[in-house]
């Protein structure tokens, strides 16, 4: 069933059949059908290289990091810091000190909101986000605006699912202290022009916080070229394990920020009367970190780098474009968001008035895993006056054959619910 049948424009790549060998989870049947996993936007699968890196760590190297001077602790520290180095290189961070390990994108964004926000926001200030944000880039700002008295504003979206740039021009003003936006929408698929948006934020003196949860796994990312002040992303969406995420930040900004979580490792000195903070990145890494998970993320970054992000985004683009064309032909199916040229490898849609849960359940009965719901982005759904969508998303291990199976299954859903 699974094979690579695309005419790819890019050269020098592993065949997808080879890639599939690295993902044991995909070689199983679900309800008697071969599994078709189209839910990587929620969480990707992991290649054996990542699993083996973690297993090897636990079987040979584990000890707590940074504070031990015995052989295992030195080796664990080296492995953990080496993972940080790989991640820094992956996003072209100027220094490893600017790569902070968190649990996930959500924690990264909360760290910025709580630490930077508490120190820099006051009544009269404005925080600007967009209507296409994931809850993780909405709720932390709602919370910190409540604490600080700052005002939260939203850039609206156009009917085509793009940011409304006219409105943005007006909303971004000298009261704006921070502009936080997603690089790619997890519902609409829209790829936002990050570098331009960052420049616009800087032009009014605001900092730019980029939610890279969907972009970093799929598009080549260079934080220096983007000039982003912060970039947040999650390991589990980019072939890495759960339990680890990243916050990149500009050094001067991170240095000026008060700490967030307090505890071991993030201190320089603890006296009963008060404490002094450790250097970056440790100031923001309190307690024993997710050591094995960081090492797994390091292996995932190696895997992605070997494939090449340019190949990955081109490959996904071709599958998504094919899917877009095929799905358009299903009567009653409506895809949200922009056309294939402006979107990443995912499609959210409604199918007549069949509830997305029911679509997903019927697809699951045919072995196809898609997501249904509001995808943690209720404001987008409110915008379109729908409560939920069905989303199919693609990654390096998917094929156009799987798109054909999706189309067949969607037609089956229509026939069951036609009434």
């Amino acid at each position: 069933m699974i094979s690579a049948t695309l005419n790819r424009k890019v050269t020098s790549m592993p065949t997808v059949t080879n890639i599939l060998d690295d993902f044991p989870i995909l070689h199983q049947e679900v309800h008697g059908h071969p599994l078709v996993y189209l839910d990587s936007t929620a969480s990707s699968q992991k290649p054996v290289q990542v699993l083996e890196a973690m297993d090897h760590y636990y079987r040979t190297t584990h000890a707590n990091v940074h504070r031990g001077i015995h052989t295992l602790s030195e080796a664990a520290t080296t492995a953990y810091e080496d993972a940080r180095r790989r991640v820094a290189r992956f996003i072209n961070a100027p220094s490893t000190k600017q790569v902070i390990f968190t649990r996930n994108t959500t924690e990264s964004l909360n760290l910025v909101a709580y630490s930077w926000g508490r120190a820099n926001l006051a009544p009269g200030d404005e925080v600007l986000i967009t209507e296409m944000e994931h809850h993780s880039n909405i709720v932390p700002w709602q919370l910190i605006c409540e604490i600080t008295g700052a005002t939260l504003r939203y850039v609206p979206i156009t009917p085509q699912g793009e940011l409304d740039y006219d409105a943005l021009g007006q909303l971004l003003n000298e009261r704006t202290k921070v502009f936080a936006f997603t690089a790619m929408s997890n519902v609409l698929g829209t790829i936002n022009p990050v570098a331009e948006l960052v420049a616009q934020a800087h032009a009014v003196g605001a900092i730019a916080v980029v939610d890279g949860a969907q972009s970093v796994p799929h598009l080549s990312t260079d934080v220096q070229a983007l000039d982003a002040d912060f970039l947040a992303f999650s390991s589990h969406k980019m072939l890495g394990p759960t339990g680890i995420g990243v916050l990149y930040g500009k050094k001067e900004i991170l240095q000026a920020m008060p700490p967030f979580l307090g505890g071991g490792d993030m201190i320089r000195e603890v006296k009963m009367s008060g404490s002094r903070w450790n250097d970056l990145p440790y100031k923001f890494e309190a307690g024993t970190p997710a050591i094995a998970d960081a090492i797994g993320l390091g292996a995932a970054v190696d895997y992605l780098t070997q494939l090449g992000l340019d190949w990955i985004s081109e490959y996904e683009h071709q599958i998504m474009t094919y899917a877009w064309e095929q799905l358009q032909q299903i009567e009653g199916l409506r895809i949200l968001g922009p056309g294939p040229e402006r979107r990443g490898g995912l499609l959210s849609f409604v199918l007549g008035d069949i509830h997305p849960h029911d679509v997903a359940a019927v697809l699951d009965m045919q072995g196809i895993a898609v997501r249904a719901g509001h995808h943690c982005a209720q404001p987008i759904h409110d915008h379109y006056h729908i409560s939920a969508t069905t989303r199919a998303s693609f990654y390096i291990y998917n094929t156009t054959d799987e798109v054909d199976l999706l189309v067949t299954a969607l037609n089956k859903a229509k026939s069951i619910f036609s009434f």
Partner: protein
Amino acid sequence: MDDFYRENILDHYRHPRHKGHLEDPDIHYHDVNPFCGDEITIELKVKDGRIVGVAFDGSGCAISQASASMLTEEIVGMTLDEIRKLDKDYVTELLGIPIGPVRLKCALLPLKVLKAGVWGLEEWPE
């Protein structure tokens, strides 16, 4: 597949019983499933500790809406004490299909709303 969307579930979904609103309900309660956004409102008439009238409204998938419709068929005539005792198994037996933990929330939302409305029990039925 046909196991999951049995004819009686589809029938309740297509032709929901007691869908709409009561005039002057004694109890009116509304909640959403935070995991997916499904919504259910339940309205009740109560007399001498017994349910004598019911209506529901809402939007959501076949499972949540069929579950609500089936539940409204069963509870008229029940005492409020009986309502309190209704549990997860009661709903899954009504639906008559095996159901995973995430989808279970869809199935249980109507009962959750019912018990919250009658007894202030805000927790998912267990």
